[in-house]
């Protein structure tokens, strides 16, 4: 549980799961549906406690599985509710059927993925494989580096999701174990600040289940004749536009947050000590902290190394990545998950795709670490830097490096 620090009335010490629950409370969410799963369980326990204590004025529905978690929220959203849940790993897999449907119905909601490696081998520890498995389904996905970023991004998620140019669901990904259970000092915005930032819910103006304005939601659409083909294309294309529109909306939301709450996070990608960098690391999530430390150590040695953190992963900020990495000689992309199709990390594929648009195209290599709760330490990042610097010299892209293979 949180401990309130007396010297700073707005500061608490809490872990990422509690921070998400505070965000849900401050965002005045109407409905949460819950089902526990490690390492998300304490998050839904906090939500239940906040409701029981009268802190969170929401309808809480304890259902019989993750499939129903999201299905209940579909009903709630179509009736006009602002909704929230969180899950991970096998729970996300079980939820996949309604998960797949959420963006097509243009349902704005926020769901935390407290990232966990997927089965099998049987594992309950952190890793990005679960969130990566659903990266092409049409949800917006933002990855957090710190507990503070979890809290702030979860609230910002609603502003993005419910924006009229977007109307899409948002995953806020926070790393299982590191962020879910790691407690740090967190500054809690006031309710007044959040109210000034976030307008009232606007979730079903476009598709509703409401007897006052009867409509049929999701009739069969498509087929080979009549209006079907063009109508289906219109839906799909609109969905893609919503994704692309979200890039600007995410930037604007982060700007508003900085203006009202006074805290600034990089919205799409963060460039760290990149000004004169020759080699760059690319990171995702909580590993970024160790990555930045390793960059600092290299800089202390006089090496021109920088780091680019990807915050918004879907839609992939192609132009921002291309710009951030233009001019470096080599890039080392560190993934906490695997692309089975490419024998590399999935973020690596995205980065080399984006580099197509870079003015000067650096060589890039894939590093995979932190699977199933393994640590990616500054030593691991030291090896990444060393290998990437070698790549900068000889341009020879080697095989994917598995960082914890010999731990």
């Amino acid at each position: 549980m949180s401990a309130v620090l007396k010297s700073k009335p707005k500061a608490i010490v809490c872990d990422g799961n509690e921070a998400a629950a505070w965000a849900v409370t401050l965002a005045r969410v109407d409905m949460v549906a819950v089902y526990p799963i490690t390492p998300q369980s304490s998050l839904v326990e906090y939500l239940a406690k906040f409701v029981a204590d009268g802190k969170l004025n929401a309808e809480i529905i304890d259902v019989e599985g993750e499939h129903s978690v999201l299905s209940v929220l579909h009903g709630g959203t179509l009736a006009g509710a602002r909704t929230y849940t969180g899950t991970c790993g096998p729970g996300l897999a079980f939820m996949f059927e309604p998960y797949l449907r959420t963006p097509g119905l243009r349902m704005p909601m926020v769901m935390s993925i407290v990232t966990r490696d997927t089965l099998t081998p049987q594992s309950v520890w952190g890793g990005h494989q679960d969130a990566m498995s659903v990266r092409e389904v049409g949800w917006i996905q933002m990855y957090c580096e710190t507990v503070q970023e979890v809290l702030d991004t979860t609230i910002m998620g609603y502003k993005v999701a419910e924006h009229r140019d977007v109307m899409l669901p948002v995953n806020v990904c926070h790393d299982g174990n590191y962020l879910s259970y790691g407690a740090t000092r967190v500054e809690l915005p006031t309710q007044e600040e959040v109210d000034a930032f976030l307008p009232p819910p606007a979730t079903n103006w476009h598709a509703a289940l409401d007897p006052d304005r009867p409509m049929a939601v999701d009739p069969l659409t498509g087929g080979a004749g009549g209006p079907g083909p063009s109508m289906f294309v219109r839906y799909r294309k609109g969905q893609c536009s919503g994704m692309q529109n979200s890039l600007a909306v995410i930037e604007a939301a982060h700007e508003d947050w900085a203006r009202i709450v006074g805290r600034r996070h990089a919205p799409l990608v963060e460039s760290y000590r990149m000004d004169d960098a020759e080699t760059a690391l690319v990171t995702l999530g909580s590993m970024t902290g160790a990555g930045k430390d390793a960059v600092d150590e290299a800089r202390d040695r006089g090496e021109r190394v920088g780091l680019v953190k990807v915050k918004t992963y879907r839609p992939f900020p192609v132009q921002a990545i291309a710009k951030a990495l233009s001019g470096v000689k080599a890039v080392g992309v560190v993934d906490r998950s695997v692309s089975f199709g490419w024998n590399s990390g999935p973020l690596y594929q995205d980065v080399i795709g984006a580099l197509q648009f870079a003015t000067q195209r650096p060589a890039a290599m894939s590093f995979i670490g932190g699977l199933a709760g393994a640590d990616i330490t500054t030593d691991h990042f030291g090896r990444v830097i060393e290998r990437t610097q070698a790549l900068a010299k000889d341009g020879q892209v080697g095989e994917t490096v598995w960082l914890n293979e010999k731990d």
Partner: protein
Amino acid sequence: MSAYNTISFLPEHCDGCNACMTACATAKTGAPDVINSRIQIVADGDSFELAMCRQCGDPKCVSNCPAAALAKNDADGVIDWDGTKCVNCLLCTVGCAYGGIVHNAAAGHVVKCDTCGGDPICVKACDRGALKYLTTANIYNEVGDLEDLFVPGLAGCQGCNTELIMRHAMRRIGPETVLATPPGCIPGMGSVGYNGLTGTKVPVFHPLLTNTASMLTGVKRHYKRQGREVNAVALAGDGGASDVGFQSLSGAAERGEQILFICVDNEGYMNTGMQRSSCTPFGAWTSTTPVGERGTGKTQDAKNMPLLMVMHNCEYVATASTAFMEDLYDKLDKAIAASKRGFAYLHIYSPCTTGWRFPSQENIEVARKAVEANFVMLWESNPRDGLQLTRSVEQPLSIAEYLKALGKYRHLSEEQVGHIQATVEKNVGFIKSLSEGCHPAMAQTMSGQA
């Protein structure tokens, strides 16, 4: 077929003035002493209850009577009392749960309502509209006056009974409704629609086949939170209810969500080409239990969905058949009322002309035979009164008579027919034992509360 004429009571219109009791006593005894009235209005806190004969479809007074002094009149549905046969044992009064037949000291024997020959004086005496005389015919007329909430021209198969169920159910439920129709025949005939056109006049949606009850949970909970009265209703097939949708259905029932879930049971996945579901009966041909050199149709018995729902301690569970519409309407009304308090589940059997292989004009006849052979039993259940048969069949049609009406059973061996006969008898015995009183205790035991 028994008629269904009865007197209904609307307590919200009653102010306890006693005019009905005075009129009845005067008509039956010549004096206005209300103790002799066949209708008794009893104060119950701020409200009133009716103690009076309901002219039940499955009258316990009749089955309790050892002297054959009570009988249900097939012409008007009234339960007649014959003073020349009565032995004054009062067993009938023990059987009745409604206080509808009682010993009257002045008369010296039991008395009960006879509906005044179809023109009840109590109803005429009530100027507040708290009493209504309902006949089979006016039940139909009343529903006919209500708006049909589906457009003309839904594309069901010829002779389809499901379309009948949809239209009648939604007329009764009314427009303040959000309707879920999971994939199957019901949206397949165009209720949700195609390419922007819809066949329904209330908000309607395709849930997934798996999540009907969960989506309705979200809809209903949010409207409740906003203080809006909106019915959350599912019209689902047996596959979506009993197989892949069972988990969400079970979860919603366990939580007591205020949902009316109507399962239209045509014993399989008829919309997608007649595949087997867990509600498909033993022996039935389906496209996934084909008949051939080795195949003999389905080799397992059907899952008893409505009984499973009883075990969830639902607010109301009933079975119904389109061959007995007055019984169906009665249950529909009870289910709608129950869904405002908790989970209500209505299981309606709907023979499928296409998938069961019989001529389309015989649909209602097949439905009727299923009930008369006890292949389908009509009952209702709630946690307070337990399970009651609403139309018990004492001299059932032979099961072979029912099976031979359907092409899907054409291949059955004598042994298979014997298995079905034995299963039906076992089921009848089980349901009857539940109706005889062991059910509420059993339900408690099953839900761990005993």
